[in-house]
């Protein structure tokens, strides 16, 4: 029953055998031990498991690992380059956009994909677009600030 899949994860080719029922988030966490991608719910609401699939932000709890065959996955572990934080990661630190850190990887993955797609976001748009990510610590205040700042950082670095 097991399937063989080949995909790129954080820039590196990966070939693995997965059970057909295994979700992408389970594959990343349990098989590849990329534990930065978190699981916060069972109804695809919290967004803690958000990763990039071919550049798009998706909830990795909502897709089978087998469906990612042949595709390119980026997780939070793949964002910083040579010890330098990605501009969105840096903005979260600068703006104190994280507290317990559990929703943070998903927030950063959602926000970086969002900013790449629409660099000139308004505060209201950011609040609307973060609908798929829950945070219980920050009241979103500094997350929104961080996403706006991160979008600027990304534009400046582009």
């Amino acid at each position, binding site marked *: 029953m097991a399937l063989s899949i080949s995909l790129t994860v954080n820039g590196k080719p990966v070939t693995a055998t997965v059970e057909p029922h295994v979700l992408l988030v389970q594959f990343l966490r349990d098989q590849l031990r990329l534990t930065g991608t978190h699981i*916060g719910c069972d109804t695809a609401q919290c967004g*803690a498991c958000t990763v990039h699939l071919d550049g798009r932000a998706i909830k990795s709890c909502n897709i089978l690992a087998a469906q990612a065959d042949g595709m390119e996955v980026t997780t939070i572990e793949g964002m910083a380059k040579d010890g330098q934080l990605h501009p969105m990661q840096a903005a979260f630190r600068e703006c104190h956009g994280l507290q317990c850190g559990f929703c943070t990887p998903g927030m950063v993955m959602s926000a970086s994909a969002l900013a790449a797609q629409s660099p000139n976001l308004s505060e209201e748009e950011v609040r609307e677009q973060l609908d798929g990510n829950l*945070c219980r610590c920050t009241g979103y205040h500094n997350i929104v600030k961080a996403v706006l700042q991160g979008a600027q950082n990304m534009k400046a670095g582009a």
Partner: protein
Amino acid sequence: MNAPEQQKLIGAGVKRKEDYRFLTGAGQYTDDVVMPQQSYGVFLRSPHAHAKIARIDMEAALNSPGVIGIFIGKDMAGENVGGLPCGWLIHSTDGSPMHEPPHPVIAHDKVLHVGDQVALVVAESVKEAKDALELIEVDYDELPATVDTASASDAGQPLVHDSVPNNVCYNWGHGDKAATDAAFAKAAHVTTLDIVNQRLVPNAIEPRAVNASYSKHDDSYTVYVANQNPHVERLLMAAFVLSLPESKLRVIAPDVGGGFGSKIFLYPEDVALTWASKKVGRPIKWVAERSEAFLSDAHGRDHVTKAELALDKDNKFIGMRVHTTANMGAYLSTFASSIPTVLYATLLAGQYTTPAIYAEVKAVFTNTVPVDAYRGAGRPEATYVVERLVETAARELNIDPVELRRRNFIREFPYATPVGLTYDIGDYDACLNRALELADVAGFAKRRDESKQKGKLRGIGYSCYIEACGLAPSNVAGALGARAGLFEAGEVRVHPTGSVTVFTGSHSHGQGHETTFAQVVADRLGIAIENVEIIHGDTGRIPFGMGTYGSRSISVGGSAIMKALDKVEAKAKKIAAHLLEASAEDIEFTNGVFRVKGTDRTKSFVDVSLAAYVPHNFPLETMEPGLNENAFYDPTNFTYPSGAYVCEVEVDQDTGETRIEKFTAVDDFGNVINPMIVEGQVHGGLGQGIGQAMLERCVYDDSTGQLLSGSFMDYAMPHASDLPNFTVETAKGTPCTHNPLGVKGCGEAGAIGSPPAVINAILDALAPLGVKDLQMPATPHRVWTAMHNAQRA
């Protein structure tokens, strides 16, 4: 040699040391820990609110692939495993102790709420454990359930525990009843409110998780657990449940993804996994699914209250009477009994000089998930009662709610309230005045007119809160029924090269202690913050601790570290004196340099550290080598953060939809170590408080006891688009008078102060339509219904 410029980390918005690991996916939460030979546990949970367990057939499940073991209640009962203890004893007004019915780790005989544990299945994988769980056959004899808070003690209600008549855990009274009744007898005006402080689900985004293992090597257990106070968890589990010496149980709370109170408690799952890990000889991991968290994490609030405020002809508050029914759920959770009593009624004076207050609290059992501390824990409920009463009285008497507050503010300190607390210091006018300014209250009338022109209703509401934090003087807590001390421990270990590791009993699950505490230590020792490491959350490394809740980390945990630093400095001065051939009294220590007063003879902190560990030139005849000190700090009073919140809303008359246009919070936290982190704490509290006011409500079906709001699809968690941009300012403030840092604590303020401000604002907006009352959460449907009912009346 010139002294380096005094570094001032205290008071600076230092960026957090912990952020890099969280931002790069390098955090280590309990679910990230995998042990050699890891196995996995899942719990079979009751589908019924109340039922007898007639039969459990596990044969097919035990033969299911990958199953290692299945454990049920009678397995544990047969092995002298105790029930879960409650940490606070409350006495009823007739002097009798509260009812403490058994709280088994796994239910046997009866299940008492939907989600109650019935069996633990351990298997090679989560999937195999779940498959086996499906094969367990349980015959339940269903019983009628008691669900609703207000009617739980009515005659004829089904008994949750056969041993508890009328489902009443205790009937507690607090304050001077005769004096309060006398005040009401002579009142010029009495304001009365019926208040439901609805049940909430804490919902930290990291679900609870446990990874427990047993080592044959030294007959000991190691438990990784998402928990806010690992030493308390160890004490409760070792001493009261498993009868182990503490030395045989190590509790590690690694990175923890939010707590908000719900991770204070000793939960049945923690015990079941620990106990079973020895049975199966393998580490067992359990991670709650979200739907399971809804059914098993302790819930918050759930009060039904009748409250009255008596005023004299000059609009001075002369009395307050409160009767509250508080829902405990099916079992007494770890600190459940203290929340609606000592953390609630003691706060009913608020910021006011009300001379006579009497509160009665009836705690009831129901067939629902246990209720315990949730961000604010009793204090939000008290603040909601006080601030709704005050503003309702102002509306009834047609006077400005700000003016009514000012007329009744406490202005002389220390101030002993009629409900047992002594406020050491505060300046309530200062916060209120600043909040009015920041909220541009002066311009409100104009904005209201503009809204009116758009066909919208605009309102403004206030809340002036006080809270008691920094729990607590142990002797006071003990007299009030606490079964534990409430001090904190800290150890400062200076290494030979002058770097420092600090071990604290406080626990960070988002609060940023690794940064804040390091700021305190680096400033005090005059060393770089990079050379200070804060270690928390491991009973194997930290001397002791009472953990983090009740906004106590900096005021109690920080004070313990300060005491240890005093000892380090005193010893280091003696070492420096020896090296400099001077007397210790002549040594001054500033900016990391020891100097013989009035001379240029100095030794650096590194010189002294090195001398302490390489004691070739050291007064060994009078002093031990090394530079490593620990301290316990037991506070002499609570701390009393206070603040003034202003909320401005716009209501759509057609739909009832309410938008918060502006939310202003001005808080007095005393001295502030890291304003960036403190403001972040306020933001988070506001998010939860506004969530309670406008969105969140845990709903049970009253007849079946089924949880209807059991997932993120059904329970309205605040999203970014539900909340406004906040205007938050930390006032210059009045430093706490009785702890070394002058700090008060900031973790819960936002959740305490905000709900009444929101509801007061909505009621102000709706007042022209004749709406007089509204219960939380103010959903569009409720607001619309209130408007239409008022207009029909």
